[in-house]
């Protein structure tokens, strides 16, 4: 399995689990959960520096961007304009080109606004960004994103933070069959087995934040997700048996006494 890497925009990553850095009680907890999860990539948000509290801890002091790949995210953006502004700033912080685009359309269900998302993907790709795109689980839209230059397709399992797990396995399978781009399930997972299902559907990875950060025991859940992703990947690569309606005995039927 050590040769089985996640490849995004020609970069290789050992772990197929990407974790978010939001919603933790503090930076120490966040850093420890990342370490336990084994993730090589973490999503981060771009926000104003608190200029009145100069001693506020910085994420970079806890999670070293030289060791863990920061994936700047446009979480909280509702227009293409805001998303582009956010990612251009993110690039300026230190040359980040691999980014996660997320343009939301509705404050309650947090579903992506796919028209704004598509527009942003086109612009960012032309500007040289490697864009991993959060999207709905619509195969047609996924195809359009691919044509617009996306570096990875990241359909939701369910609404962000909902913990519902994969709601439409069929669509995820269709998207898997139509694209060679990295396919990463982003948002809506609730428990480790959801990640296994995603990997068994043939996804290249999963992105998890709330399910780990808000679990009663985040560290144990981080490890559970780590194992679940590895397990699901192995299961997918192993090639599952066909489903049959009737039973087939596991022991030889000859020589029964």
């Amino acid at each position, binding site marked *: 399995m050590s040769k089985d890497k996640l490849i995004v925009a020609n970069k290789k990553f050992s772990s197929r689990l990407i974790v978010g850095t939001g919603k933790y009680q503090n930076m120490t907890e966040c850093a420890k959960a990342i370490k336990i999860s084994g993730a090589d990539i973490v999503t981060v948000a771009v926000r104003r520096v608190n200029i009145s509290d100069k001693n506020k801890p910085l994420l970079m002091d806890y999670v070293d961007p030289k060791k863990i790949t*920061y994936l700047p995210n446009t979480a909280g953006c509702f227009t293409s304009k805001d998303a582009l502004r956010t990612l251009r700033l993110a690039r300026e912080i230190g040359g980040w080109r691999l980014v996660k685009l997320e343009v939301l359309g509705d404050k309650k269900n947090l579903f992506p606004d796919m028209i704004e998302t598509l527009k942003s993907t086109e612009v960012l790709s032309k500007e040289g960004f490697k864009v991993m795109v959060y999207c709905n689980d619509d195969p047609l839209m996924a195809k359009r994103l691919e044509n617009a230059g996306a570096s990875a397709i990241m359909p939701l399992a369910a609404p962000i933070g909902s913990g519902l797990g994969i709601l439409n396995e069929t669509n995820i399978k269709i998207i898997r069959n139509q694209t060679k781009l990295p396919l990463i399930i982003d948002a809506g997972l609730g428990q480790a087995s959801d990640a296994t299902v995603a990997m068994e559907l043939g996804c290249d990875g999963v992105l998890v934040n709330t399910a780990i950060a808000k679990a009663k025991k985040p560290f144990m859940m981080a490890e559970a997700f780590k194992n679940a992703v590895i397990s699901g990947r192995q299961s997918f690569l192993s090639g599952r048996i066909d489903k049959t309606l009737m039973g087939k005995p596991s022991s030889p039927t000859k020589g029964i006494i």
Partner: protein
Amino acid sequence: MKKLKKIKIRVNGKIKIIIDKLTLYQLLNDLNIPITKVAIELNKEIVNKKKLKKMKLKNKDIIEIVHFIGGG
């Protein structure tokens, strides 16, 4: 002694009174901002961090300083 002229600028949404002709570099230093870990916008234009020392601030300038924080 000649009294220094003061100007009003807005930094991350907060109004600040500073002396005229202060450079952006000096402002960031005064605010204790680790320059390598942030990005800066001056009047909605992204600032090239190599040019900070040459950029003199003017009255009503709007500055945004952002960094990475935890997020999903």
